[in-house]
């Protein structure tokens, strides 16, 4: 009991424990080689080996040009629930991407790094599409991210299932009635889901909004003073829900799964279980890289538009930096964003090098996008990389030929993801209850959404 050895032993045990606990709170360290370590977002977990090869090649190219920076690729996928956890836990990479819909709130919460001076120095602040740049500009007039990619929503379809149903894959549907009709033919002929739609993890609300805008409706109007009015209870949204109801309950061509989100619907589509679905026009890359789609069966067309003032809901993402990084890491982050994301949009050599590297690694080159800069620059860049384009552009012609005639519409600005989450329930109710009262659902959703917008 009184032994000094025992006291010493206890002291060592206590000191070791306290030391270990203190050690838990210190993270990271300097790169022993003196380089600046930069953790950058890459692709979602589960990508194929070729994606890793392509990234390794690009990493090497960058590090050769920037010997003082050590790039560490981190698997990353923006997902509603996990993003919040990563953000709160400080485990996001130094450079990552977020959807347009989240940029405003993030910068209002001081969760993004100011990059105004850096973007001015790089000299392309004025090259951006002003509408897109506005989305990353704070009330203080400062810029908090680099818009790097934009897309329009589109209708992806399976050409093989079209053929099996006696439909011409080069003549995809151009009206929602045709979508319904084609879906029924596909289901009757193949037993597969003719048309499916996402319904969970905020994607149900997202795609309900896509359908609403395509029928001339809007789910929210901006009051211009930071507040907004919910307009979910409108005829266009009613039309989408009625369409979903009819496809599911009258035609039986929706398929059995009503709990699909971005990942699972892509998986089902790539597996050949879905005839048509709506999502971003840039989905081809993920379908091939992450879900193993056979590119021969892929078809892409524009979303059918009808009603007054219809449009195509667009979106995109922004390359941003964590607000907690030091100046040195920030400077490295800007170098990376400029090299990895921006130069291929602006510079022929960079565009060609990027396309060549991706092509040699078997990655998709030439997936249809919308320009974050100008349409001219975008179309010029397609000419630069022409020899390396490996996506079946002819199978996407119904989209690429017609998209410029559609009016692009941006996503609602206020509490976007929360309202999407709320609308998930509406979509799920219609898909699981044959007798769902659509009018009552919409009235309730509008009240709930307005309460969210006012809070």
């Amino acid at each position, binding site marked *: 009991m009184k032994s000094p050895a025992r006291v010493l032993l*206890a002291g060592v045990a206590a000191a070791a424990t306290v030391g270990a606990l203190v050690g838990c709170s210190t993270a990271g360290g300097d790169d022993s080689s003196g380089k600046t370590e930069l953790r950058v977002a890459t692709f979602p977990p589960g990508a194929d080996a070729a994606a890793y090869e392509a990234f390794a090649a690009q990493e090497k190219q960058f590090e050769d040009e920037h010997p003082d920076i050590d790039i560490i690729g981190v698997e990353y996928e923006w997902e509603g629930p996990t993003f919040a956890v990563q953000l709160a836990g400080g485990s996001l990479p130094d450079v990552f991407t977020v959807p347009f819909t989240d940029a405003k709130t993030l910068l209002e919460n001081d969760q993004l790094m100011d990059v105004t001076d850096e973007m001015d120095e790089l000299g392309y602040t004025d090259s951006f599409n002003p509408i897109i740049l506005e989305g990353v500009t704070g009330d203080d007039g400062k810029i908090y991210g680099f818009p790097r990619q934009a897309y329009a929503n589109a209708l992806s379809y399976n050409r093989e299932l079209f053929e099996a149903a006696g439909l011409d894959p080069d003549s995809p549907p151009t009206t929602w009635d045709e979508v319904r009709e084609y879906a029924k033919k596909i289901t009757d002929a193949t037993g597969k889901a003719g048309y499916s739609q996402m319904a969970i993890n905020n994607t149900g609300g997202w795609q309900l909004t896509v359908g609403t805008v395509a029928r001339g409706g809007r789910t929210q109007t901006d009051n211009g003073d930071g507040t907004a009015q919910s307009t979910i209870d409108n005829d266009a949204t009613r039309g989408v829900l009625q369409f979903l109801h009819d496809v599911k309950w009258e035609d039986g061509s929706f398929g059995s799964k009503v*709990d699909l989100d971005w990942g699972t619907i892509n998986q089902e589509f790539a597996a050949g279980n879905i005839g048509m679905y709506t999502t971003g026009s840039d989905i081809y890359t993920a379908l091939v890289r992450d879900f193993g789609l056979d590119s021969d069966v892929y078809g892409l067309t524009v979303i059918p538009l009808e009603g007054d003032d219809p449009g195509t809901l667009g979106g995109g993402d922004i390359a941003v930096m964590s607000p907690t990084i030091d100046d040195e890491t920030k400077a490295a982050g800007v170098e990376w964003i400029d090299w990895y994301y921006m130069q291929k949009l602006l510079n022929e050599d960079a565009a060609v090098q990027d396309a060549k590297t991706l092509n040699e690694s078997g990655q998709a080159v030439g997936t249809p996008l919308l320009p974050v800069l100008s349409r001219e620059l975008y179309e010029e860049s397609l000419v630069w990389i022409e020899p390396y384009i490996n996506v079946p552009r002819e199978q996407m012609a119904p989209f690429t030929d017609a998209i410029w005639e559609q009016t692009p519409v941006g996503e609602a600005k206020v509490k976007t993801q929360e309202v999407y989450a709320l609308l998930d329930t509406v979509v799920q109710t219609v898909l699981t209850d044959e007798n769902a009262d659509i009018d009552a659902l919409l009235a309730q959703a509008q009240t709930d959404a307005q309460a969210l917008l006012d809070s």
Partner: protein
Amino acid sequence: MTMTTEERPAAASAPPALPPARRKIRRSPATWYRGGGLANLLFVLPMLFVFFFFSWSPIVQSVIMSLQKTNMIVSEWVGLDNYLAVMSDPELGRAVVNTVYFALLALLFGFPLPLFVAVLMSEVRRGKGLYSALAYLPVVIPPVVAVLLWKFFYSADPSGVFNTVLGWFGIPPQPWIQSAVQAMPSLVIEATWAAAGGSIIIYLAALLSVPPELYDAAEVDGAGIWRKVWHVTLPQLRGILFIMLILQVIATAQVFLEPFLFTGGGPAGATKTILLYIYDKAFRNSLGGDYGEATAVSVLLAIVLAVLSWLYFKLTNRWSTS
């Protein structure tokens, strides 16, 4: 044995001295050290640190957070606003109803089944160990794997595993977890399957403690197996049944894994339980969630469970002394 009259006065006239342990001893730091005080303190210190950092600090932080509006970076005191907000949220009411529904179904399916199986197994004379191992097997399977497996079974396609089996009997394919009506019972069936093994083992152990002579007496009186179960087994297991019931109520109040992994609370909120509600409050919003309101519900749930636990201790104490 009785006490003699001679013994009594001695006890009455000389009250016993206080036991030595109760005496207040003033100790100097030197005596405290010589008595091994420092070594004891140093031995306890790591455990106190561990408790503080990993057990108590998050609890205290949660209570503080429930009084704040915070995104983990910027915090603002809002008093009881979070509590008032969640108490008036119809979604919470729905989550409570869903949780109670889950608990009732679990009670209906999950409570009698392990007992029934355990009683049957106790009657088996050979291969009892094998049956026990088989019954316990689902508990060994990692829960996430089990749910993924059952998700596959619950496929709503006509070619899904369960639907194929139903098809053999001419029953049309069921939507299972894709239906707002069938989703919750489907989750309960899986949860029962996953947890039954543990309960069966406990019941089997309890059955061993039933005195065999009671069964012998019942047999002499001409009782069959069901009368023996009703008049001997169940009364003898009353205590353990009661404990299992309370434990199950507490466990079902915290059900999260099944609705989270199977349905994400859907379809149309039909399987959103209290814990999933808390999770959604905190994390569904990609921009940081409403941690204040989420922790407020957590604190409320903790209080309710604490009351339940208190009741549990009260009742089990009474039972154990009877």
